[in-house]
């Protein structure tokens, strides 16, 4: 229930944001490392979630 909701929000969010992200990325020019920055941001978010998550969930 809870997890499904999170997944749906993530998928819809990714779908809605992806054109903007791809546009920003493909206009990078010499800043070819732009996708890596987004990626790094996601990793940081995931790290923060993992830190605050109750690991008893597993």
């Amino acid at each position, binding site marked *: *229930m*809870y*997890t*499904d909701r*999170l*997944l749906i929000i*993530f998928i819809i969010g990714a779908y809605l944001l*992806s054109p903007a992200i*791809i546009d920003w*990325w*493909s206009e*990078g*020019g*010499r800043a*070819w*490392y732009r*996708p*890596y920055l987004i*990626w*790094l941001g*996601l*990793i*940081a978010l*995931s*790290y923060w*979630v*993992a830190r605050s*998550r*109750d*690991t*008893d*969930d*597993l």
Partner: protein
Amino acid sequence: MTYSVGELILIACSYLLFLFLVAWITERGWLPARLVRHPMVYVFSLGVYASAWAIYGTVGYAYQYGYNFLSFFLGISGVFLLAPILLAPILRLTTTYQLSSLADLFAFRYRSRLAGMLTTLMMLAGMLPLLALQLKAVAESIQVLSGAENARTLAFWFCLLMVLFAILFGARHTTAREKHEGLVIAIATESLIKLLAFVGVALFGLYGVFDGPGSMGNWLEDHPEMLSRLYYPLQDGSWHSMIMAFFVSAVVMPHMFYMAFTENLNPRALITASWALPLMFLVMALCIPVILWSAAASNAPTPPDYYSLGIGMVTGGGGALLGYLAGLAGASGMLIVATLALSGMCLNHLVLPASPLHQGTNLYRNLLWTRRVLIAAILALAYLFYRMIGTEHSLVELGVLSFVATLQFVPGLIGALFWPSGNRNGLFAGMLVGFVLWLLALMIPITWPQWRFLPLMDLIGIRFQTGASQWQHVAIVSVTVNALVYAIVSIVTPMSRSERNAAEACAVDSLRRPYRWSLQAQSVEDFINALAQPLGPVTARREVDMALRDLRLDHRETRPYALRRLRDQLETNLSGLLGPSVAHQLVDDHLPYRPEEEQQSSEDIRFIESRLEQYRDRLSGLAAELDSLRRFHRQTLLELPMGVISLGADNEVIGWNLAIEALTGISAEDTIGSRLDTLPSPWGELFSRFSQQDDAHLPQHSVEVDGQSRWLSLHKSEIAASTGEQAGGQVLVIEDVTELRHMEAHLAHNERLASIGRLAAGVAHEIGNPVTAIACLTQNLDGEQDEQELQTASRQIMEQTRRITRIVESLVTFSHSGGLSQALHSPVNVRDTVAEAISLLQLDPDHRQQPFDNDCLAEHWVQGDAQRLLQVFINLLGNAADASEQQQPVRISSDRHERGIDIRVEDQGHGIPEELRDALFEPFVTSKAPGRGTGLGLALVYSIIEDHRGSILVESPIHDNHGTRFVITLPIADVHTPAQEITP
């Protein structure tokens, strides 16, 4: 700069030996457990995903398809970023049910041997290109570095080396129950080496070819076509679908499934992997453009697939060896793990179902050798595939073949986790359609370009595309058709009950609802004997012992609940050994349920509760609120100050609260799941007899516990069969009334003392007469010489003494009667007891003149305790006499009818005031003047009559506003039966 083949093979052997040494040291326990179970070890072991395809192929991919190469890394990163949501449920399932591969999971979920078999065959076919890719990559990398001509021979020797190491690493144990810690550490080391070497190659490029990042930036400015080549593929729409393809294939690939779930040493490490694994792949992905541009800038003398080697060949300084080592590490790691995983799948789903188990003690050895042969066979197949397709295909082409093939399992997997209505027919249909599309539209056209199924290609619109470029299209079409067919067939075809149970067990956020069926096997020995037939006696005993250890159960266990758990655990353990289909079949055949029980079975409440406890943290919203409510009710029942026992329809204990634990000294843990009659004495007999009797109440029953008497009042209520599968049962409530009983005894004692006090004057008078007589007789004896007279006087004195003794004895008996000693119920003659009460009462000077008419019939006998009934009559007659005027007789009569004997005590007194009538039998209620009565007498009478399972009624007034009648009904005694303890 070139190397000799010998040098490169020596490096490969040394590297593999080093890895084996790492594994060996780990298995000897020389590495600290903290290190072995460290989450980062798990993270690095998952780096097995980056095979030779990642080291070599993705550079070629980036060269050909620009930024699309990122989808390979972003796909798996996405999966792990969502690990707590997507992967944790799979990990839970694989750990709980000992499922070691996707085929195991499908066979378990869809309750079908065929599902496991199909998955294995398709996985094998789908993985062959990726396995061949590894052989090809290593052989060609040696060829590139050494200039050797025959890559096929190199691939053959590398393949042989892999057979040896795969067996050494993973086929020394048989069952998935034992984790291969050595393998995990070796693969983690392999990933670390691969990562360092790959970063090393990129640094060689960055600082060997360019002079650092700034220099590379300048070069890119001078070569804008390199950047636009990178960006170009972003414009077409295939980017999303590629990420999705890599996203899902990352989970279903056998080597990833194996490392992520089967070899998981620490479930919490999955949380660490959710950020650390994407970080590791980010670093690798960052190296790829650098390697690509460095190779382009330095005109590396290799095809784009091998730019990682080419840079080092240009710059020298061992850079090429680093690239070689990275490729070797990636290829060998993937080959070992994938082969082990595939061999397990083949063993469980192809070999074992096809060949019946041979009885004997060497089951484990047979399994081990079969697995080794399978490892060799799978690698031989990969080599044959490599030989068959020739050398002209790029790594990219081979890689995508496998990725699209593994996509065909995705609808089935998503269904298994999130859609309990998906069934095996849907799975078969979907997977077969998807697989055939893959085969006809991708596999055959790429491997054998001369065979093309043009009508099909027209249909799905890939007529004019060639090679790997059509793969995106085929991937989308095949997986969409697969998912549609799966969904439609699942909806229109029926689903079996066992499949539905398994579906619920697998579904995320749902609980398995097991049924309380009785097993034919009634003891642990029965289990061993039943399993000895297929497994052999030694293996059967070992497996049963292991399952008992896992459940922390004893060999003497006979509780139905525990035996059901033992059966489940055995199936789980055997599933780790033989695969879920064979294990399920074996357990179903040899440890069956009783067929007649199936219809009246009910849900295993206890098991559901224990599951709910485990799932507690994952409940949210309405489910969490319902769970709180459940907890509240459960806690209420648990903390109830009365003992509560819930019973199933088959008399199995399913609830046992704290009060009953304290009362019986038996913990819920030991009781729940037992049949009621198997409880220790005296409880088993008492409770089961009570649960079967017609009467719903058993008041004040005496039980001997640890040498002390306890009084219990038992009550029961039937739980009606509600809707659904619940088959009803009973709830027993046990009230410990020992304290009340003690208090009553105390009150009774006080009452007796009060009576004795009142009688004291009469006693003195009664004793005074014989004493005076004795005194006179003694005086007369003084001068008496006549022998005859002396004898007469002495006899008279003796008579008077006996009279005194009788009075004293009856008083002493009265004052001591009715204690808490075990009461004996025996036939009591009503008339005699009433007469004794009258004679005692007449000791009281107030009652001496009171006429009592004892009209009770001498043939009326009641069952009871004579002393306590005497107390009843003393109290009632005393009250009647107190209420009566002088010379008004008190009449006592008896009457027999079907239900018992009525004893009537009637007086002609002033009657009972109306305001006291309703509370007459409550303590301290009296109509007497202060100081004349304690108010305890009638309360005591009521309590004694209740104990005798009798009744007491009062009528007042009976004639013209005066007179009172008490009617006591007592059970009739069979005067021929001996005295017996109180029984219901």
